[in-house]
C-alpha cells in the first residue's frame, strides 16, 4: 500500500487534531519549567510552532517521510493554513490567525540567563590523512558558546481551543525553545484550564495586543497602543514569506 501524499496525510490529521467546533472554549494553558528556555528575553514564547511541528511531523511520517523538512521539501505546503491544530481561527485584517496569545510569565517574573554549550571534535575521528587537525577554525573548531536563555518559572497562554485535543498534543511537548534537545526549556508539566475572557487570546487586560495581530494600517496598531511591523502572523515564524503588517505585543519580560 503506497503512503498517502502529505496533503492527504494532513487532511487525515485534521480528523484527529483539528478543533471540534462544539468543543471550542476559552482556555488558559499553563506550563511549569525546570530549566531556562533558550532564546533572549525579548523573544515571544509562542505555542503555535510547537503544536504545528508535532502534527506536521506525524503527517510527514504517515506520508512516508523521515521528518517535516523532508516532507515539505518534497511537497511544499502552506503550514499556517494546512496543518490542523486544536485551536480556533480568527480573521484579522483579512489574515487568518490562530486564536492563541503569546506567553506571559507566571509564578515569578522571568529573567535573563546564559547557558554555555561546548563542542569539541574527536581528534582521532577526523585525523585520517591529516598531519594536523585544526581545532580553532573550520569544521573541527572547538566551541564554547553562550546561549542566551530566559528563566521562566511558568508561562501562560490564552486561547480558544478544544481542550481535550490540546491536552493530548501537549503531552508530547517535553521542552520549548532553542537548545531544547540538550536540556533547556524542560517542561515539568502542562495544564489546560477554563479561561475567563473570550478575547484574552487577542488583547491583554491593558488593551494591548497579546499576540501579533494583522492590521490594515499602522494607525490601527497605534490605536491598540502597539508598534507595527511586517512579520509573520502565524507559525512558522521564521519563514521569510507570507509576512504582513502586524500590531506587535510588548516584548521583553
Amino acid at each position: 500500500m503506497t503512503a498517502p501524499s502529505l496533503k492527504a496525510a494532513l487532511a487525515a490529521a485534521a480528523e484527529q487534531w483539528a478543533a471540534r467546533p462544539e468543543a471550542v472554549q476559552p482556555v488558559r494553558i499553563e506550563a511549569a519549567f525546570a530549566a531556562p528556555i533558550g532564546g533572549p528575553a525579548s523573544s515571544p514564547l509562542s505555542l503555535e510552532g510547537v503544536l504545528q511541528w508535532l502534527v506536521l511531523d506525524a503527517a510527514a511520517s504517515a506520508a512516508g517521510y523521515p521528518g517535516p523538512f523532508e516532507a515539505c521539501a518534497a511537497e511544499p505546503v502552506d503550514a499556517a493554513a494546512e496543518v490542523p491544530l486544536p485551536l480556533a481561527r480568527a480573521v484579522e485584517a483579512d489574515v487568518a490567525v490562530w486564536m492563541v496569545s503569546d506567553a506571559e510569565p507566571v509564578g515569578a517574573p522571568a529573567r535573563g540567563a546564559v547557558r554555555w554549550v561546548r563542542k569539541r571534535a574527536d581528534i582521532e575521528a577526523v585525523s585520517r590523512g591529516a598531519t594536523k587537525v585544526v581545532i580553532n577554525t573550520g569544521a573541527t573548531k572547538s566551541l564554547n558558546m553562550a546561549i542566551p536563555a530566559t528563566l521562566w518559572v511558568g508561562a501562560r497562554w490564552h486561547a480558544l481551543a478544544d481542550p481535550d485535543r490540546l491536552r493530548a498534543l501537549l503531552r508530547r511537548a517535553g521542552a520549548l525553545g532553542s537548545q531544547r534537545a540538550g536540556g533547556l526549556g524542560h517542561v515539568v508539566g502542562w495544564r489546560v484550564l477554563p479561561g475567563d475572557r473570550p478575547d484574552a487570546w487577542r488583547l491583554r487586560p491593558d488593551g494591548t495586543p497579546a499576540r501579533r495581530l494583522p492590521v490594515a494600517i499602522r494607525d490601527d496598531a497605534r490605536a491598540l497602543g502597539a508598534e507595527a511591523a511586517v512579520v509573520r502572523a502565524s507559525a512558522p515564524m521564521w519563514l521569510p514569506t507570507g509576512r504582513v503588517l502586524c500590531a506587535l505585543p510588548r516584548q521583553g519580560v
Partner: protein
Amino acid sequence: MIKLKSSEIAYQFARVLRAAMQAGRPAMGSRWDRASGELSGCLPALASAAPTSAVFFASVCQRFGIDPASADGGRPVVVWDDGSPVPFFSVLARLPWLQLRAVIRQSPATFAAYATTFCKREDEAALLGPEIFEPFDTEEAPAAPFDLAGFTPPDRLSSVIVLESPLAHGADVSGSNVVGFRREARFDPLTGRSVDLPFVSGNSIRGLWRDLLAYDLCALTGVAPAELDREVGNAIFAGGAIDAGATMGAVDVGVRRAVRDLSPAWALLGGVVHNELMEGRLLVSDAVLVCRESAWLVAPALGYQGDARDLAASLPPADACTVIRQATRKNHADIPQRDGGSTQMIFHTEALETGCRLAHYVGLRALAGVPSVVRSALRRAIDLSAQAGCLGAKNAAGFGLVRWGAYGGGSAVDALPSADEYLAHVAARRDDLRAWLTGALRPGAAQAADAPPPSTGGKRGKSKAAPAATQEAA
C-alpha cells in the same frame, strides 16, 4: 539573630578578610602579586564546601598560609570598630552563614580586590566604606510558591543516577586553580525562591551517548576511528558542521532519508552530514541533583507520590552535597628538570559527593512515537553508558563513577525495546555502514539527479560547491 542586609554582611566579611590578608601579606612574598586573582577564584568553591563561616574562613586562611589566631604580630586578626578591636571570630559569628555564602557568590572578585588593594589609612574611610557593597542588596522578595497541582507531565522516561565516586562537571566560570561545580539559577516553587542548583547538562549527556554510539558503531563495523572519513567522523562523534561552500536553501530529501535509514543512531541524535542539517528525535534533560531545592522536580524520577514538601524536608540542601578534592602535580623526583626548577601545581575540584543522586529525564520527539529501531538505538546508548559507568569530567582521575538506573515510565509509544533490534540492523547493513563511515559511499547518491543544481560563480565558497557537485553527478 538580627536580620542583616546583604550589603552589611558583605561589608563585615570584607573587612575581616582584608584584615587577615593584610596581616598575612609580609609572609607571602611574591605570591602577594597574584593573591587577588587566587582569592577571587577560590572563594566560591571554598564557600560551597564549608558547613560554617568559621570553617570557611579557616580554609581561606589556610590556603594562604595565614593563622588568623596569630597573624597580626602574634595577636588574632581584628577589625576596628570605633577604635575598639573586634576579633575575627566575633565578626563571623554575627554573619548568617547561608546568606554570607550567597553574598560571596555574587561577586568574589569584589571581596578579593577589597582584601588586597593598597590604600592609605587616611583614605580607608572614603575608599573602603560600606557604600561599596550597596549593590549587593539585590534580593528579590520571594515570589508566591507556585502551585504545581494539576500539571500533567509530558511523556518522558526517567532514571536515577547514583554517584559511586565524586562527580566533577565544571562551572561556567572558574577562577584561579579551583574548578567549581556547575550550577544554574532555578526557581524552587515550594519556597518561592531562586536557588543555584547543581546539575549535569543535558548537552553533555547527549555528547556522552553520541560518543558511545559512535565508538560502538566503529567496533561493530570493524572501522577504526582513525580510518573514518573526516566529515562522517566529525558528524558521528561531534554532530558535524556546516562547511563553507554548502549549497544553502535546498534540502536533499534522498540523502536525508538514506542517512537516517542507514544509521538509527543518526536518526536518534541528528546533526550535520553531507551539508544536510537534520534534527534528531531525542530530548535529553539536565541531570539534576536530588536535594531539598529540587524535590519538586525529582519526585517523579524517584517514584515519590506524596507531597513534595515532605520529600524536600527529607533531602539534604544542595550546598551540603559538594566536596573539594585537592590534587597535585609534581615533577618526578628521579627526573632532572631543565633549568633546575621545581614545578608543582596544586589544583582543586569541587565535586558532588559520593552517594548523591541525580534525577534524569529523556523524551522522544514524535507524536506517535519514533521507529522501534531508533528507540532500540537509544537503549543501546543507555546500555553502553551503564556499562561504562562514568559521567562528567576527570573520569581518568577517579571522578564520576556512577550507577546508572534503568529508564522507565513514559508513554507506551516511547517504551524502549532491547538493543538487539539496533544491533541486528547494524549487522544487516554492515557493508553499507562501513562504506559510509570510510567515505566510499554517500547515502542517497543514487538520487543525485534530483539534487539541487550546483551554484556557479558567486562569492564565499560557492565555487567550491560547484566542483564537488559536478564530481558527484559524474
